[in-house]
């Protein structure tokens, strides 16, 4: 009776150890395959990059400044009006009459 129980305990321990070993082994295999695939992919990318033509002027140039009639002074001797930094209360308004 005692021997049966001892044997059963040993068998249980053995099965647990076996399952753990299988899981560990499987994981190691999976990681190894992933590593190999990644290395292969990076080698492939490096090879493709090496064979690709160099990239020239990839950075886009800024768009040309938009020039409209309103950006150009309508007459000589003037610059675009600069409005005051602070709003000021005015006593009167000059106007054509």
């Amino acid at each position, binding site marked *: 009776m005692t021997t049966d129980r001892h044997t059963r305990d040993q068998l249980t321990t053995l099965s647990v150890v076996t399952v753990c070993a299988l899981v560990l082994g499987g994981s190691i295999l999976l990681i190894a395959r992933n590593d190999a695939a990644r290395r292969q992919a990076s080698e492939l990318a490096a090879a493709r990059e090496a064979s690709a033509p160099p990239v020239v002027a990839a950075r886009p140039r800024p768009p040309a400044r938009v020039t409209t009639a309103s950006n150009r002074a309508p007459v000589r001797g003037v610059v675009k009006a600069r409005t005051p930094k602070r709003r000021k209360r005015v006593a009167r308004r*000059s106007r054509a009459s």
Partner: protein
Amino acid sequence: MNETRFKAMGTDWWVHADLPGLADAAPAAVEAIEACLSRFRPDSSLSRLNRERSVTDPLLAEVTRQAIRIAQLTAGAFDPTLGADLVGLGYDRSFDALGGSVTVVAPPQPRLHLALLGGTVTLDGPGLLDLGGIGKGWAVDHVLQLLLDRGAAEVLVDGGGDIRGAGRAWPVGVGDDLIADAGQHAVATSSTQRRRWRTIDGSWQHHILDPKTRRPASAAIDTATVTAPTAALADALATAVLVDPDGLLPRLAELGATAAVRGLDGQWWTTSDWSTDA
């Protein structure tokens, strides 16, 4: 009361003086000037001059003298001898009385020459003297000096948008957002968008004539505001700038003046020395 409002010279006036009651002297002073300089009053000195070709009137002579000086300073862009052309284009009565369509009758005329001897003005040649481009500004200067002479320390005179002050800073609005200090310089505005009328053929005219063509000036700007040492100069220069902006705007600093102008697209431009911190 420290201020008074009245109508004269075909526009609204507003005068402020820091001494109570002093501003009340302004309407009579402006009325006296209008009685002398108006070309719409048959009995004015100017109308008599245009009829009789020679008149002695010190006030008329003084304003005419200033008009001739400004005509020389602006190389003729300001020209007070185009009265006959304005009449020919239909502007032959005060603008309030100018209603409906008018007929263009007068062809361009040869030059009118002016002679000044003391207080006597003499016209030589065909044409009419017109002091409309300087008279209102001159009246603003006159009223300001009158009130200062009578003891006022702070004065602001607004004759239909021609403005000059004294005694302190007087911020004045120009265009949409600009400001000028009428306490330092006189400020005046002219526009081809005001005082317009339609002739019998349906075309629109305005009162600012180009002396070269003797027709309404056509420029890339429609409004000009000028700051200058006197309102008479600012008034005349605002007109002259609309006639010859390319010739005058680069030269305004020589005359002690600055300008803000509005392009036909509504944008405002200024001479580089226009103060934004008035």
